[in-house]
């Protein structure tokens, strides 16, 4: 096993004449935690995009690499699978793509199968099924560094002879040995010619076959690492385990607020001064107003959350790649079970504190469909980073900054914490209701493979952050820009004698007044009403909307908007507004991702109606009770 030296590939067919056409596309197949995504990222770098197969919720990445002749080879990253039985959606999609039955995706010319070399016996079962498909296949045995370091052995050539395919040991995280993929796609490759194959639909026999093949390749499994056992002894300790768990959860929030907030503030100052100098280059009048008040202010009011979002994904990425999140899910399972959910829901729900969109995508690890939908439906109750500016603005305007619990806790911080708890309770209660009614499951399983502890790699973290930031920036550049421009336009219509009207006479005001009867019982006037409508695009838009509607100087928007709010809202109305935002489903991106992940309009529709009605009812109760108490 000369790893790290010349590309060590054992090819039983080296002397055999080529029988296949040139390779133009390859599919990367492998079980979860085998390093499949790491390999894919190594192969394609930034030349990749996310795609969805039509009609299914399974997402995949497509990237490109160049072969030695300089031709572009498409690389499809298929979902992580344990087997090829058509029962799970991921596995069905994989079979369909590999057999060329997936609409819009041509059958790949070859397969790169990546397996975990530290656990070969089990993973060879998948190899049998993949090789039986009859496509040229390259078998990569990943984590070769861990295999050798922990005293495992393997005769690669013997394995290649038995499988009838080229086999190579690699260490994908370090990029060692992966140039065999280059060689593979640069030459004509023979079809697999396995010495024996088991009866594929008989799992016990497949296992026997795998054990025989592994034995015939002098495979000795590595001794489990001492570190892994030591870490498990802490993370799954009866007392230390839950304490570490709590510390991690608190640490994630601390990190986002104590590190993210100053970064966001700095970015806001930077963007504000950029906006001012931008305004300086433009002549006065409507163009300047459109660019500065309409577009710039609207978009930057959202952009300032980028640091917090990046930070959260960084922290969660480190926790996930290191292997800790799987242990956290085990610790959380009992508590989650009490509200009818699965321990695996812990991971998406934690991410939902940053943003519900990636959280909902992260629910894919939950196999039980009902558990998964329940998790998707409650995720938007978690206090996402878009609610934060709304809370901050209203609290700062209405709650005096006095201490209520000694020096530790100010009134404002208590109010903020209360809103976080409120969202969490709404999620728990909703989960209970859902799981004891429409989403009741007869029995739900919690089957979670514990990945080995690994150091997160900069490359995979970097790519993930790049992916998320890009998605966020695209949203700011499209949806939020469009809403900002539209709102600006509507505040400048109808023209009166060629001049824009007073804001009170604009189309927006007329629209807001029309909805006033519905929101008056909540203590909201027409301006708040318009804010509620525009914030359906994204929650934080209400701030830029109110800023525009109040006709304030954009540079002082934050400070004077708070004063202006006092004339719009009573104290009870402000409380009602906060409660409304805690519950309401104001986020088109979330609705879109729920529609994509559940593959129907039914669930996003139910979610939107439920959350809006709950928000309306709760805000109504708060305002009506509040006005009677505080006047």
């Amino acid at each position, binding site marked *: 096993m000369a790893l790290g030296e010349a590309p060590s590939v054992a090819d039983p067919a080296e002397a055999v004449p080529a029988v296949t056409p040139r390779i133009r596309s390859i599919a990367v197949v492998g079980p979860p935690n085998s390093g499949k995504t790491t390999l894919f990222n190594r192969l394609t770098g930034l030349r990749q995009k996310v795609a969805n197969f039509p009609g299914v919720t399974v997402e995949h990445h497509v990237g490109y690499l160049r072969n030695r002749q300089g031709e572009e080879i498409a690389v499809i990253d298929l979902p992580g699978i344990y087997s090829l039985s058509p029962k799970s959606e991921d596995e069905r999609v994989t079979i369909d793509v590999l057999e060329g039955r997936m609409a819009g995706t041509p059958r790949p010319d070859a397969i790169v199968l990546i397996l975990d070399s*530290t656990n070969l016996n089990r993973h060879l079962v998948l190899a049998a099924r993949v090789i039986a498909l009859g496509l040229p296949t390259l078998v990569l045995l990943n984590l070769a560094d861990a295999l050798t370091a922990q005293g495992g052995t393997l005769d690669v050539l013997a394995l290649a002879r038995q499988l009838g395919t080229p086999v190579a040991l690699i260490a994908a995280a370090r990029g060692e040995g992966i140039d065999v993929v280059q060689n593979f796609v640069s030459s004509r490759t023979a079809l697999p010619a396995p010495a024996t194959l088991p009866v594929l639909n008989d799992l*016990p026999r497949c*296992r026997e076959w795998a054990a025989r093949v592994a034995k015939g390749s002098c495979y000795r499994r590595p001794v489990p690492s001492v570190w892994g056992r030591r870490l498990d002894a802490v993370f799954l300790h*009866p007392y230390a385990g839950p304490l570490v768990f709590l510390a991690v959860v608190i640490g994630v929030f601390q990190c986002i607020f104590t590190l993210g907030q100053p970064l966001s503030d700095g970015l806001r100052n930077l963007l504000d001064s950029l906006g001012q100098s931008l305004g300086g280059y433009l002549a006065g009048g409507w163009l300047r107003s459109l660019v500065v008040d309409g577009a710039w202010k609207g978009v930057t009011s959202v952009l300032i959350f980028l640091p917090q979002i990046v930070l959260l994904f960084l922290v969660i990425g480190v926790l996930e790649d290191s292997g800790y999140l799987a242990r956290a899910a085990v610790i959380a*399972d009992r508590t989650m079970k009490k509200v009818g959910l699965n321990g695996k829901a812990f991971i998406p729900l934690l991410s939902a504190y940053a943003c519900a969109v990636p959280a909902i995508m992260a629910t894919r690890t939950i196999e039980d469909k009902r558990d998964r939908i329940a998790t998707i439906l409650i995720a938007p109750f978690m206090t996402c980073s878009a609610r934060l500016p709304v809370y901050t603005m209203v609290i700062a305007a209405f709650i005096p900054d006095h201490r209520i619990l000694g020096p530790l806790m100010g009134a404002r911080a208590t109010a903020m914490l209360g809103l976080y708890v409120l969202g969490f309770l709404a999620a728990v209660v909703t989960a209970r209701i859902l799981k004891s009614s429409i989403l009741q499951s007869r029995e739900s399983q*919690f*089957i979670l493979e514990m990945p080995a502890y690994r150091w997160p790699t900069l490359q995979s973290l970097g790519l993930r952050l790049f992916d998320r930031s890009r998605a966020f920036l695209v949203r700011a550049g499209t949806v939020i820009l469009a809403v900002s421009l539209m709102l600006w336009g509507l505040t400048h219509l109808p023209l009166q004698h060629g001049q824009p009207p007073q804001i009170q006479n604009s189309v927006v005001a007329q629209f807001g007044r029309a909805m006033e009867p519905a929101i008056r019982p909540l203590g909201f006037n027409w301006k708040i009403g318009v804010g509620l409508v525009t914030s359906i695009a994204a929650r934080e838009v209400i701030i830029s909307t109110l800023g525009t509607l109040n006709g304030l100087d954009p540079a002082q928007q934050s400070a004077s908007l708070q004063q202006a709010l006092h004339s719009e809202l009573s104290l009870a109305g402000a409380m009602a507004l906060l409660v409304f935002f805690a519950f309401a489903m104001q986020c088109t991106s979330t609705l879109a991702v729920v529609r994509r992940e559940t593959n129907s309009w039914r669930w996003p529709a139910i979610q939107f109606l439920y959350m809006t009605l709950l928000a309306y009812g709760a805000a109504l109760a708060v305002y009506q009770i509040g006005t009677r108490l505080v006047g």
Partner: protein
Amino acid sequence: MTEGESIRLAELDEGERAVVSGLELPEAVAERLMCLGFIPGVEVVAGKSAPGGDPRVFCVDGGHVALRRETSQRISGLRLVANAEGDEP
């Protein structure tokens, strides 16, 4: 090691071993578990658990898989008991 009484995997304490003898679970779940190594005849070692013993991590076939009690309750096995001489597994 000798095979002893018939048990459920849920009855194993940390460090105890058994050989899987059957899975009384819905087909899809059983298949998933078999892919992870819970195949009749394969040896399983009970590992660490969440507080209260549920869910518990089982070492099977070189991998580590966490199962809820209600799942491990429905996997039957034969307990492996160390002989008096304490021979190696």
